[in-house]
């Protein structure tokens, strides 16, 4: 018993302080991979059945919301198409050089999710690694929005730290009020997000959409996240007299607790290793 505790402590120390055990962990993970895939396959029909039942009960309410949303998006799309064409023409005339933007400057690699996050461990394991061209700090998204970044890479598996992890921070902006740029941090709950460092003079409303802000022009510490990745919706905006910043709660678009597949964004141009990156 004492020997096992000492062995655990040794493993913990070595694994926490260095990457010496990474090859062992990578090999063991690749051995376990088929079993995890198998367990996922066995559970899928039950998950689908639960999801189908849940969808059936919410179908009418969801239909009403989506119909309204389609009308709103049609109007927005008509306005944006004209603005987009004008923007492209003006950029061309001005020879405007932009920082990398999503999705045009990135290739996407789809990967199956093997594990789910827990309250204390906001990471997931995906079935793609360095063999597929994935590197540490690559951005991970789904069709709905931002998921997180790659934190560990093995040959055919990687670990993704979610945006709800306490160590994660994203430079984000209110899409409707572009002056409101702040840092998206984890909130008090395990899956809640807070848009921090937004001054009281900035206008932010509940229902606004929050997207990644990308890097500041000429910044020596570029953001890991390209601009324009949807993150979530502002659910509440609070303000206390003694606080410097607004208290803004954000609900992520992506249901991070039940991911099945994700997309890893691989930059078309390799990252410059000399520069340090700011999350």
């Amino acid at each position, binding site marked *: *018993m004492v020997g*096992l*505790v000492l*062995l*655990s*402590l*040794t*493993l*913990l*120390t*070595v*694994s*926490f302080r260095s990457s010496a*055990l990474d090859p*062992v*962990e990578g090999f*063991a*993970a690749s051995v*376990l991979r088929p*079993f*995890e895939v*198998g*367990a*996922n396959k066995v*559970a899928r029909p039950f*998950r689908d059945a639960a999801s189908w039942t849940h969808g059936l009960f919410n179908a009418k309410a969801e239909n009403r919301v989506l119909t309204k949303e389609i009308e709103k998006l049609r109007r927005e799309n008509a306005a944006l198409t004209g603005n987009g064409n004008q923007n492209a023409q003006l950029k061309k005339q001005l020879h405007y050089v932009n920082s990398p933007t999503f999705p045009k400057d990135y290739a996407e690699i789809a990967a199956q999710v*093997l*594990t*789910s*996050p*827990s*309250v*204390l*461990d906001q*990471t997931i*394991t995906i079935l793609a690694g360095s063999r597929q061209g994935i590197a540490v700090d690559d951005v991970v998204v789904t069709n709905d929005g931002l998921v997180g970044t790659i934190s*560990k890479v*093995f040959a055919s*598996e*990687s*670990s993704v730290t979610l945006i709800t992890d*306490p*160590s994660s921070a994203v430079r984000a902006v209110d899409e409707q009020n572009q002056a409101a740029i702040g840092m998206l941090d*984890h909130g*008090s*709950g*395990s899956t809640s997000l807070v848009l921090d460092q937004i001054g009281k003079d900035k206008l932010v409303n509940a229902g606004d959409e929050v997207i990644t802000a990308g890097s500041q022009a000429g910044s020596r510490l570029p953001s890991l996240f390209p601009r324009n990745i949807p993150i979530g919706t502002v659910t509440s905006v609070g303000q206390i007299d003694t606080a410097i910043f607004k208290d803004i709660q954000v609900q992520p678009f992506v249901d991070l*607790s*039940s991911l099945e597949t994700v997309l890893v964004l691989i930059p078309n141009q390799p990252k410059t290793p000399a520069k340090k990156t700011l999350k």
Partner: protein
Amino acid sequence: MIYDGFKAVAVLFVAAMFQVSVLSAYSPLGGAPDLVLVALIAVSLLRGSIFGAFAGFGAGFLIDTANLSTLGFTSLLLTLAGFWTGRYGETTARDRFHAPFTSVAVITVLYGIGTVALHFVLGEATPAGAYLSGLPATVLLNLLLTWPVYRFTRRLFRPLDHLDRVHEVRLLG
């Protein structure tokens, strides 16, 4: 004993795979059911402290590897959980009806507090409030898992006391 070892490996392996791939995605009532912990407690109660410690170490290693997390973290906690549960079974309450339920309730709370404490020791930011507020629900969910898991485990690991029981007494005098 060797067969018991194989059976424990099989039970905990299936439980660990099911835990990391399926169960961890669900948090009913804000709790997180832990099939591996419940299975380990059942095995340890039936087979004792040393067996429980080894089973806990192996199960923890599997979970850490599958989650690509820090090796040794879960092993350390589950080794202690397996040992203490086994000791409890050996000394007082292996055959009592309440033993698995008491063990699961107590060990789930201690395991939860130990997990948060170990994260703090390692200097990792942890939403302790959110986790600990979900702990009562986790205890409840684990207690719901206890009866089926313990019954299944008891079938696999027949109580040693019955096997060791003397069936015949030979009179010498």
